[in-house]
C-alpha cells in the first residue's frame, strides 16, 4: 500500500476534490479460499477461491443452479439458517475470518448488507421505519442521528426526493422500483462496507432497472458491491469485474471487459455468447 502525504497548503476545495476522485483500488475486500458448501449431501459450491476487490462492482453470472446465490449467501452467512448446511474453507472480510471460532454472524451482517431479489420492505412499517429499523434494533437511540441517517440513506438510494414528503406512509404504497431502492436505503443505513445484491432488478421494469443500475454506479464509490445477475447485459454494463460460475465451480474471474471480449475458458465463452444457460 502506498501512503500519500497530503501537502498542508491545499485549499479545502482541493482536499474535497482529492477525496472524491475515484481511485482505482486494487485492495481486496473479501478473500475467499477453497470454499465448499453442502446442503445435506448436495455439494453446491466446490473449491471456490476468489479475491473480491474493494469499492468496485463484482458481478456473479452463471446458469440457474450454478451456486451463485449460495455463494452470495455464504458471504454474510445467511445460508447458516438452513439446518443442513455445511461449510469448509475460508472467507476473510478485510482480513477477518468470518467462519472463524470467534466470528459472530450478527456482527458480520452489520458489515455486509444485502438486497434481495424480490423487494421486501417490511409491509407493516412506514418508509422511515423501514430505513431506520436496522439502527433502532441494534441499539441506536439518538433521534438527531437517526434523522440525519434517514435522509442520508434515502439520498444515497436516490429515493429522497420521491418520498421526503411522505416518510410516514406505508412502505407498500411505493412502486416496485421504489420499494427496491427503499430496501437499498435500509441496507446502507447501517453503514456496511459491502453490499450484496441478489438479482436486485430481476422483478423490475426496464426503467426501474436502469435507475437501480445508475444507483449501483454511485454506490460503488463507498461500498464494495457483489451482484448476482441473470442478465448478461446488466453484468457487462454495471460491473467492473465478473465471475462466471458453472455447476458450483468458479470457472473464470477477471475484469468484466476481458471476460466479455476475450474469455479464456471455453465454457465462459459459450455461456456469454448464449450457447447454453
Amino acid at each position, binding site marked *: 500500500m502506498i501512503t500519500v502525504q497530503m501537502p498542508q497548503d491545499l485549499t479545502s476545495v482541493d482536499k474535497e476534490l482529492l477525496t472524491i476522485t475515484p481511485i482505482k483500488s486494487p485492495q481486496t475486500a473479501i478473500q475467499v479460499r477453497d470454499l465448499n458448501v453442502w446442503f445435506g449431501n448436495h455439494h453446491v459450491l466446490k473449491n471456490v477461491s476468489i479475491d473480491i476487490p474493494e469499492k468496485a462492482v463484482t458481478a456473479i453470472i452463471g446458469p440457474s443452479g450454478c451456486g451463485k446465490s449460495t455463494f452470495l449467501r455464504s458471504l454474510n452467512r445467511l445460508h447458516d439458517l438452513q439446518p443442513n448446511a455445511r461449510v469448509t474453507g475460508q472467507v476473510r472480510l478485510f482480513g477477518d475470518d468470518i467462519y472463524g471460532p470467534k466470528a459472530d454472524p450478527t456482527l458480520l451482517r452489520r458489515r455486509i448488507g444485502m438486497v434481495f431479489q424480490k423487494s421486501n420492505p417490511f409491509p407493516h412499517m412506514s418508509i422511515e421505519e423501514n430505513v431506520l429499523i436496522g439502527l433502532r434494533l441494534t441499539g441506536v437511540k439518538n433521534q438527531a442521528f437517526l434523522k440525519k441517517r434517514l435522509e442520508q440513506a434515502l439520498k444515497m438510494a436516490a429515493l429522497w426526493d420521491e418520498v421526503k414528503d411522505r416518510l410516514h406512509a406505508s412502505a407498500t404504497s411505493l412502486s416496485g422500483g421504489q420499494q427496491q431502492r427503499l430496501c437499498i436505503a*435500509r441496507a446502507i443505513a447501517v453503514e456496511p462496507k459491502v453490499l450484496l445484491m441478489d438479482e436486485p432488478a430481476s422483478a423490475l421494469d426496464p426503467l426501474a432497472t436502469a435507475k437501480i443500475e445508475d444507483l449501483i454506479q454511485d454506490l460503488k464509490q463507498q461500498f464494495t458491491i457483489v451482484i448476482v445477475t441473470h442478465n448478461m447485459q446488466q453484468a457487462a454494463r454495471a460491473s467492473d469485474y465478473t465471475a462466471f460460475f458453472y455447476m458450483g465451480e468458479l470457472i473464470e474471474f477477471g475484469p468484466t471487459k476481458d471476460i466479455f471480449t476475450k474469455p479464456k475458458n471455453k465454457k465462459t465463452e459459450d455461456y456469454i455468447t448464449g450457447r447454453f444457460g
Partner: protein
Amino acid sequence: MTALITVLPLVLVLWHLINAGTKALDLAFFTQTPKPVGEPGGGIANAIVGSFMIVAMASLFGVPVGILGAAFLSEYAPPKLRNIVRFTSDTLNGVPSIVWGILAYALIVVTMGRFSAIAGAVALAFIMIPLVMRTTEEMLNTVPSTYKEAGLALGIPKWKTTLFITLPLVKNGIVTGVLLAVARVFGETAPLLFTAFGNQFWNFNPTQPTAALPLQIFAYAISPYEDWHRQAWAGALVLLVFVLGVNVTIRIATNQVSTKE
C-alpha cells in the same frame, strides 16, 4: 333441512334467552350487588366486574406465555420438539376445563389457604395458553422467510427479529386469536367453581374470593328462588351478548384487514 336442524336450536335458545332474560334486565341489574334472599331487585354488577378482572388477569398470564411459546416453537425449536409440543398443546386443548380448575386449586388455593381471583385467573390462563399458542404459531408460519432474512441481513439479532419484526407483522392475526381465547374463557364456569369461588359483594382484591358472571348464573340457576332464576337468565343473556359481540368484532376487523390488503 340440515341447515334448519342446525340453526333451529340456536334460534330457539336465543329466543328463549331474550324472552326470559330481558324480564330481569334493568339498570339495577348492571349497577347493584345481589340483594339478600327474599328482597326483590339487586343486580350482578360485582360479577360482571369480577369476570372482567379475572379474565384480564388470565390474559396477563396466558397471552405472553402463549405468544412467546409460539415464537419459540416456530423460530427456534427443532422439528422434533415442535411436534411434541404441538401434540401436547392439542391434547391440553381437549382437557375438560374442570381439570384446570382442580390444578389451579391444588397449586394456588391450597398454597394460599383461600379461594381467590388469582387462582381463577390461573385456571383460565391454562385454557388460554394452547389456544393463543396455536393461532400465533399458525400466523408466524405464514410469514415469508424473506422478511426474517431481511431482518437478519441487517445485523439484527435473531430474537429481536422475531420479537420486533416477525411478530408485529402478524399482529392482527394474533389479536384475533387472543380475542377468541378471551371469548372462550369468559364463559367458563367449571374452572372457577373452586378457584375464584364467587362472592356476593364487591371485591377488587385479587387475593380474595371474587364473583364472576358464569358463577353467578350457576349459583342463581340452582337456587330455589324464582327471582334469582330470572336474574340467572338475564346474566346468561349478558354473557351471550358479550361473547357474540367479541366474535362479531373479530369478524368485522378481520374482514376489514383482508379487504385492505
